[in-house]
């Protein structure tokens, strides 16, 4: 279908600092004991998109991700892993691999997307309108559970960033305004021209940019070339395209005009004009065309920025914060269990056959127990993911938590709403509530933490 897919997998993300490490870059963070990147790759594979470019920040991370992909997807996907320097931003990453982009349209997917929205739908909407950019929006997560399980201070700064102010036209097909909550100060500035052309704008704050875009390649490359300062797709490129949609600068020397010129050479000019008139007149005009026709006869160049709004029944989350990490983990073994790819037992949980449970230990629904993990007696696990080869003593309570691989938990611990990374050791009677424990950390016996990030000092 002439689409090329770029997966922006990211690297060592700052937002997820205690969780990610040199060994586990962001794309390999486990979600229900599978790297988060696998969800995107499988989504694409389902859509028959098998030629991918995965862009990873940092050389080390790229090697790790590449190693994992080649192991897990050999023979299934043809993946090219490209390393880009850190902190170039998403736009910079695309700039770095621009020479590899050849297809007519490019689909850019964030590697931390966990979703079951078919990417084809976005591509189809893009093609249908012949748009310059199409963004996928999904309904922002209802922040109900986040109150209980959020780590107070940190979330306050991050929370507004997750929300977007999005302006749509009445048909909900075109993007008229977009700003992330973080950039917003007190007021929103709209352009009069757009507002006048459309007549009616719907402003919504309950939508989230899923970071899945379809770009017209020629336009994307032109924007990236001309605007050197653009760092991020979401914060720079997309708002720029949306802003300039009625006074399009990008297309002036872009491909579409060249195309037209080509046609005109073949056909008599007059016929061509008539033809386009026939086509334009009968199709339902969008406001772009109406505006483009203008009042004084001179045609103005416009381009279209479309949106695809995923239906509410679909699951769509981005793993871009610690909060999101535990949310996604909870959802994948809970309400969005079809994403995990595991088959659930009758009790609605997954316990690997090699896992061992002590007597009077209960594992509730929406839980997952990885391969080779051992649990002592009288434990209880609720809505949690426990990784591979963990050793858990007796009388341990785990609720709403994620425990990664090779974690040792001694007797009498209580873990609530926490994330515990690989190779962590919890000594006796540790009580953790809403904590993140970095990889390899040792929590001493009897300590009680609430809402803290525990990690080894960087060497």
């Amino acid at each position, binding site marked *: *279908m*002439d*689409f090329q897919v770029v997966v922006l997998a990211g690297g060592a993300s700052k937002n997820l600092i205690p969780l990610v490490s040199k060994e586990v870059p962001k794309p390999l963070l486990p979600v229900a004991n599978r790297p988060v990147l696998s969800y995107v790759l499988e989504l694409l594979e389902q*859509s*028959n*998109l098998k030629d991918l470019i995965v862009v990873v920040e940092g050389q080390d991370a790229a090697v790790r991700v590449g190693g994992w992909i080649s192991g897990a997807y050999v023979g299934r996907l043809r993946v090219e892993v490209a390393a880009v320097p850190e902190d170039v931003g998403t736009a910079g990453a695309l700039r770095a691999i621009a020479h590899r982009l050849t297809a007519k349209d490019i689909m850019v997917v964030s590697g931390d997307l966990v979703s079951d929205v*078919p*990417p*084809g*739908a976005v*591509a*189809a*909407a893009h*093609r*249908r*309108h012949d748009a310059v950019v199409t963004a996928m929006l999904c309904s922002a997560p209802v922040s109900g559970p986040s109150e209980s399980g959020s780590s107070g201070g940190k979330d306050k700064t991050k929370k507004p960033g997750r929300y977007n102010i999005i302006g749509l036209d009445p048909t909900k097909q075109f993007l008229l305004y977009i700003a992330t909550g973080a950039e917003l100060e007190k007021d929103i500035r709209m352009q009069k021209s757009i507002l006048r052309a459309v007549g009616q704008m719907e402003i919504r704050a309950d939508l989230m940019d899923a970071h899945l875009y379809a770009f017209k390649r020629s336009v994307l490359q032109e924007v990236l070339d001309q605007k050197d300062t653009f760092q991020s797709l979401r914060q720079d490129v997309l708002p720029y395209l949306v802003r300039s949609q009625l006074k399009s600068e990008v297309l002036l020397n872009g491909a579409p005009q060249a195309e037209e010129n080509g046609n005109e050479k*073949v*056909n008599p000019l007059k*016929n061509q004009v*008539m*033809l386009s*008139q*026939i*086509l334009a*007149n*009968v*199709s*339902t*005009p969008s406001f772009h065309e109406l505006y483009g026709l203008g009042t004084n006869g001179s045609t103005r160049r416009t381009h279209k920025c479309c949106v695809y709004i995923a*239906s509410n029944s679909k699951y769509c989350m981005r793993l871009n914060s610690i909060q999101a990490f535990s949310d996604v983990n909870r959802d994948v073994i809970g309400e969005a269990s079809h994403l995990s790819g595991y088959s659930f037992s009758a009790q609605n949980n997954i316990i690997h056959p090699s896992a061992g449970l002590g007597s009077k230990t209960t594992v509730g629904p929406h839980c997952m127990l990885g391969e080779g993990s051992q649990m002592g007696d009288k434990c209880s696990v609720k809505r949690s993911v426990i990784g591979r080869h963990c050793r858990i003593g007796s009388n341990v309570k785990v609720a709403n938590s994620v425990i990664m691989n090779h974690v040792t938990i001694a007797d009498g611990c209580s873990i609530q709403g926490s994330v515990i990374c690989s190779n962590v050791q919890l000594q006796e009677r540790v009580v953790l509530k809403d904590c993140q424990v970095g990889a390899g950390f040792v929590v001493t016996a009897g300590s009680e933490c609430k809402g803290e990030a525990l990690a080894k000092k960087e060497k």
Partner: protein
Amino acid sequence: MEARRPTRAVIDPKVRHVGFFAPPANPLPGPNSTLLSGSPAGNSLSPVMIPPPRHPSDRSPAVPVPDTGLRRQGSDHVPVGSYNPSESLLSSSPAASSPSGRVGLADGEFSEESDGWYRYRRSGSGKYDLPLPDTTPEKALDYSAKSSAAPVLESKKPAHVSGKSGKAVVEEQNELQSSSKRPKEKTTKAERRALQEAQRAAKAAAKEGNKSAAVSGGGPPSKPVKQPSIKKDAPPVSLSIAASDKKGSDRPPEKERKKDVPPPRMQFDDKSRVEKAKRRSVVHQTEARNRVELFRHLPQYEHGSQLPDLESKFFQLDPVHPAVYKVGLQYLAGDITGGNARCIAMLRAFKEAIEDYSTPPEKNLARDLTAKISSYVSFFTECRPLSISMGNAIRFVKSRIANLPLNLSESEAKAAVCSDIERFINEKIILADNVIVRHAVTKIRDGDVLLTYGSSCVVEMFLLYAHEMGKQFRVVVVDSRPKLEGQALLRRLVANGLSCTYSHINAISYIMHEVTRVFLGAASVLSNGTVYSRVGTASVAMVAHAFRVPVIICCEAYKFHERVQLDSICSNELGDPDAIAKVPGRMDVNYLNNWSNKENLQLLNLMYDATPSDYISMIITDYGMIPTTSVPVIVREYSREHLFI
């Protein structure tokens, strides 16, 4: 047309009667009467059918030539009414079927309506008939040398045509019967087999249900008369050659014709077929539940679910070319509407697809590409039922592909097809529109008030052009829910400085007082002069007719179709019923919310209607301004041109 109608009315039943009863019941009066009535008509037809110089030579041993010509007509029409009996007869006793051949002939003369249709077919098949005269005279010759009875019979036939007495017929009958008995004793195995094969081929051919005359060559009813005689006397070898010849000559046209003729429309009230089609389809469609009884045979689906479903399959549909997919999506979403625009969009998608096409190894370009195009067409059909104009365009593309010279390289062939498509767009649509506009302008006088309905691109072009020419006139744009297409037209007209009145169709009888001419577009013009167009056109035309305002249809000739349709029920398109349930911009008008949950409520959103030719004063096409009665002429004379420009 008017003059012809009564005759048809009188004769039609008779024809049918003859067709079913005459041959088996009593061979004597049947052929007799039909012959008598048939012969004058045969004469009147001969200018079209039989080249005059041949007539005198009919008396020579090469009788079969005109014979076949005449018989062919008979055979044409056999499928119309008298097909089955004659066929069964044929298999039992070839001789007895000879009257049925003639019956068919009579039949053919009188069914005027279908005449144009068949004639076109016939002329199309003309070249395939050529071999026949070549072979038959020889046979006739050598058989005339051998047997004495048969020549008499044969030489008598022309006499029948010019009005023979029943006696002769009886005689002939007897002779035929006797002669047909004779071969049965004589025939070798090979001969019988050849005969059987020929008959089978003919049968199959006739069964295709083609009005196609050309079956003629091997067609059952025309053959049998001749065949026995040939078989009798010609040496077995030549017979088998003849048989194979026959097959060779009419098989290929058969196939081609099959391609030409659209398969019978699917009736959507036929459950098993619908199930089958569903399994094949790309777009997942759930059928609407509350369907109007009268229109159950038309496809109607839940409109909400189609688009997301097709969208989500974007990357899975490998065989569909992206350009085709995009256009299909636009059809489905309603981004492209209007006959011309849809047709152009489709042709361009085909062009792009052909440009990107490469023949897979060990396949033939013509065949594989045709199959590809067919798959695209079925994809389009799933997105939205094809319009008649699109059907014509598809037929054109396919015939161009089928008729590619074999020695062309792949790139040349592709370029040839692409340029043909481009030419079709330019000549049949754009140039045609220009010509129509030129013609139409001559029909406006200063001070006219013109009424148009909906939004037709030709009418719009013509109004703008007339305005440019400085004609003084006023336009009334009549519109209707739910599409309100007229508003877009109105906007463009007003922007160009025309003085306009806008009204809805409810007010048509009030506004018609001041109107002096009505200009309408059409989705298609059918060969009985019926105009198939946006729903509402018929009422506008009818009101105009009642007010004695001339109704002028502007329609490109590529939209003409040989089909005959008397009402808008049997073939139509159903739109989204939600479109009429909802009033855009009025949230308070919600009485029909959740209508689909109500068992006893059905909504009907019909897309097209058929305007009877009585209400139409004139049709302006690219071939000039014609009355509705001349539509069959255009269809007959120029359809070939569509296919072979």
